[in-house]
């Protein structure tokens, strides 16, 4: 079953959802084609003449039907273009996954380095604790001797 204005099949949609990319040329070509079609239709539908016909209650039913069809066609183009933007975004998902994973490794290394630096001051703290313990031991020994 095909969907949208672009005529993508369900299989193609699924293909995009799992992160595979369509060839870059195809996505860019679709984008260009849809953008041009949308611009042409928008120029017509955004005009005062179009809005006046829509607002006029005396507009004949067959003309109104045609106006609505044109509006619906634009909405399909908008949807198709949004879909193409999404394709471009999804096409990059695999690269983003790789970057997230690699940056995570860098961060682990950075955090380990920060822990290593903390240990340097810990070592001096250990020396202080040792000196205090030695002092206490000597004082205890002296008091026992006395």
């Amino acid at each position, binding site marked *: 079953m095909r969907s949208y204005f672009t005529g993508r099949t369900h299989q193609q949609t699924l293909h995009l959802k799992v992160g595979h990319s369509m060839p870059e040329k195809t996505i860019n070509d679709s984008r260009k084609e849809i953008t041009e079609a949308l611009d042409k239709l928008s120029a017509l539908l955004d005009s005062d003449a179009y809005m006046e016909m829509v607002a006029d209650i005396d507009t004949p039913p067959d003309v109104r039907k045609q106006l609505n069809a044109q509006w619906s066609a634009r909405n399909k183009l908008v949807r198709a273009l949004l879909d193409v933007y999404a394709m471009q975004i999804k096409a990059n998902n695999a690269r983003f996954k790789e970057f997230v994973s690699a940056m995570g490794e860098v961060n682990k290394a950075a955090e380990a380095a920060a822990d290593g630096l903390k240990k340097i001051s810990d070592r001096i703290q250990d020396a202080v604790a040792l000196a205090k313990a030695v*002092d206490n031991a000597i004082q205890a020994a002296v008091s026992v001797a006395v």
Partner: protein
Amino acid sequence: MVTTMIARIKFMATLIVVLSTVGCASSSTKQIATDLGTEAAALAPLAEAPLLEVRNAQIRLSAEQAASQTAPSGWDEGTKEASIDRDDIALRVALLREIGRYGHSLAALASDGELERIDAAAKDLYGALGGINSTLGNIERKKKSTAKDPISADDLAILSTVVNVAGRWYFEHERLKAMRAITQQAGRLIPPAVDLLVEELSEKGSWALSYELSLTSTSKELYRRGILSTTQPADKRMLIEEATRLRSQAAGALTHFSAVTKALKKFDDGHKALKDALEAESTVTVRNATASVELLRAEVMRIKAYKAMLDAEKPTTSK
């Protein structure tokens, strides 16, 4: 006695000069790392909000089209609300957060908090050694009333200062080594990652264009519904006003993304500068020599202050 004092001063001066000029990250490099890290950490939440807005704008468009009964037929149920899904956003946010986390790590590595701990520990060591010295002196004085403490207060102060200077030098040396290794590792990843983010989030990128299209289309939908509305004039006016508001929001949407991409580019430039500065510090250059002199001056000032602090807190030992 005078000869001994001169020898001590020479030893201290040599130690300070040698330790200050070998393998330490300069204060300017540490400042770059701190600033860069702080900025990067603040960037992730700033960039996350616009991405969510893009999806929300698409959902709003779908809702308005459905309300106007002008939604395209035959939509795939799975992508009915928005063609950008939560996973797409989550991946970009995850990368921005990792960059932010990296910023936090850089700032933590560049922080002088641990150096303050070393100062405090060396000062405590001075007190603890003073305690042993006094205890031993008291024992000796029980045998002979004129006996002195085994080590003079000045020698204890010098010993403590040496521990402090050596501890700080070792810390700075290890810090420079770690920062150099980490920025080199990250330096291979950050430029392509930022390029990809900038390509997507720029004014001509898919996110910004998608956002703008969703907002302008929703605005048109509301405007059309307002024109067609046969209900109360107040409702009609409300729809048209909302359409106008969305149109101006769409105009501002591009600057929204532009700000994020500019910040990302600055982060990339800053990181490259930091990496280069850390690498340059391993070679002898005029710039480094100047920096080393500055570092030395600062270090000497610090040592002086440290020594003065010790003098003020000198324990009572008999000579």
